[in-house]
């Protein structure tokens, strides 16, 4: 598999020579009762400081597993990183000691989870949970940490932060809880934030507010952001580049606007066509036929071939490499030219 050409760096002018995070040929598998599930099969992507990478894919496409591997919170066992490198500031995190990695977590790389209600500890006050970051990583006293927690809550625009700092997660609304998750990730001003479906559990109106807040804070701190989502609408507004994942591989990667205009992979095309549109009101909604593959039995050749309208014999035998399609664009399709063309 070819490594993606880093011309996408042109989108973020201030980007240093080495990317902030560089995932190289990552393979992750899970041992299950039904056999070995190959969740991630050679993922390559990179993020620069101040840049937003959106990772798009269905459930089970390996987008969250990749994030967990970066974060070092993969359940091992049953999970296992079989090969690959995860370079952070040019250093491979997979060869670091447990203690070295722990010091990066929260401090240099932070994560925002999907469902803040279950991701926050129900029996500890939000002030305690926010303050814990400062107490553990910076050795602050309880009192100082609480002041910092209030400051953080103000920063993510939670009203009456001072009065609410001792409240518990269940006493906040969904949007406010997600703001607390964001505040927690921002606490130590990390270089990279991984947001795993940060708005999926929220109302549509609140989704926009939370996304805007996240984008604004990211600009302010010039952090790198990996936005994991299956919501194409969210992606268009905030992402710089997109990586589309299918069955543990990146099938297409592109700067954000080009992918909407001219997808170079039949899967991406299918995804875009299945968005409901006002001008097609009354017509049947397009859906990609079939189901995502069982990860213990990924089809040979291109994993998408059983569902692909363009599949030929070669798709069933040869795994397509990520072809360079344009500047900063790649498509893992044997027929990318045809896909782009029509």
């Amino acid at each position, binding site marked *: 598999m070819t490594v993606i050409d880093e011309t996408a760096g042109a989108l973020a002018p201030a980007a240093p020579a080495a990317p902030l995070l560089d995932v190289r040929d990552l393979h992750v598998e899970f041992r299950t009762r039904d056999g070995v599930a190959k969740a991630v099969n050679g993922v390559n992507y990179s993020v620069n400081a101040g840049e937003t990478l959106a990772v798009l894919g269905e459930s089970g496409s390996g987008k969250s597993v990749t994030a967990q591997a970066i974060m070092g*919170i993969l359940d091992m066992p049953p999970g296992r990183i079989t090969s690959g490198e995860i370079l952070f500031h040019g250093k491979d995190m997979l060869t670091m000691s447990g203690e070295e990695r722990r010091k990066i977590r929260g401090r240099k790389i*932070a*994560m925002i989870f999907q469902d803040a209600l279950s991701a926050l500890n*129900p*029996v*500890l006050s939000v002030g305690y949970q926010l303050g814990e970051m400062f107490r*553990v990583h910076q050795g602050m006293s309880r009192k100082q940490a609480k002041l910092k927690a209030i400051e953080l809550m103000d920063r993510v625009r939670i009203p009456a932060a001072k009065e609410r700092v001792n409240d*518990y997660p269940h006493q906040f609304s969904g949007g406010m809880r997600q703001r607390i998750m964001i505040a927690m990730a921002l606490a130590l001003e990390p270089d990279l934030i991984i947001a795993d479906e940060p708005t999926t559990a929220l109302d549509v109106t609140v989704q926009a507010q939370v996304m805007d807040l996240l984008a604004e804070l990211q600009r302010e701190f010039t952090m790198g952001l990996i936005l994991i989502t299956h919501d194409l609408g969210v992606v268009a507004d905030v992402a710089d580049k997109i990586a589309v994942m299918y069955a543990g591989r990146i099938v297409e990667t592109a700067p954000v606007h080009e992918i909407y205009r001219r997808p170079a992979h039949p899967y991406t095309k299918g995804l875009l066509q299945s968005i409901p549109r006002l001008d097609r009101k009354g017509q049947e909604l397009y859906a990609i036929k079939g189901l995502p593959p069982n990860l213990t039995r990924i089809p040979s050749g291109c994993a998408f071939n059983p569902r692909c309208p363009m599949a030929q014999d070669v798709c069933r035998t040869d795994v397509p490499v990520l072809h360079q399609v344009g500047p900063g664009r790649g498509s893992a399709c044997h027929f990318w030219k045809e896909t782009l063309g029509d």
Partner: protein
Amino acid sequence: MGRYVIRRLLQMVPVFIGTTFLIFVMVYALGDPVAAMFGDRAPDPATAAQIRHDLYLDHPLPLQYLHYMGQIFTGNFGKAATGQPVTELMGTAFPVTLRLTIVAFAIEAIAGIGLGLLAGLRRGRFADSGVLAFTLLVVAIPTFVTGYLLQYFVGVKWGLANPAVADGAPFSDLILPGVVLAGVSLAYVARLTRTSVAENSRADYLRTAVAKGLPRRRVVTVHLLRNSLIPVVTFLGTDIGGLMAGAVVTERIFNIHGVGYQLYQGILRQNPPTVVGFVTILVLIFLAANLLVDLLYAVLDPRIRYA
């Protein structure tokens, strides 16, 4: 909160009346305390009638119960078979049993939670299976068997501890009986903790705690254990009453002159005031422990609100 406590206290009244009435009926209705006083000889009918009158036994049972309750509330628990006031027996027996309970409770809580945490963190591995097998064994063997075995081996054969408890029940003598008394509860605590830890260690907030870069020790103690102990604390609280009342067998084996011993004597000599008096106090302890646990629940889990 205040209203909740008042409501709970009011709810205790019928429970208290119900349990004491049951005990009262069972003890007074099912035996003849006057006949028991005279042992093998048949009492002189006139004397028996006089005693019955003195002890208020010539009235219908519900009236007897009311009379008895009235006496209790003035602090008069009646006299034991030896002629001592029952309150005097209580004064010596409860402190001893309380000491035994404290020792047993500490063993139960520390060893039970420790074993449960170990098993829960190492699910499916050797330590887990080991704890599981151990708890099964402890639950399956009756207390009088473990009691006598430990007394014989640890106390007599190896001489590691005193096989019987000396007067005044010093804590050093109470460790062995404490282990025996705590045994079964300890096994339950271990299993409960294991299940709770295993369940919570898959929770999302635990993944968050790891993602925050917290040291493993902190993840386990602050985030995992804090949540996992909620059901365990409930069990421990209700078990205090059980430990105090359940010491009959243990106290007999180790010759401890506590509540269990006095109850046993009371039953043996068919002396109603002793049995009913002690049980009444145990019921009160049980009810108080339960209320305390319910209040503690709200402290441990802020999602619980009392209205």
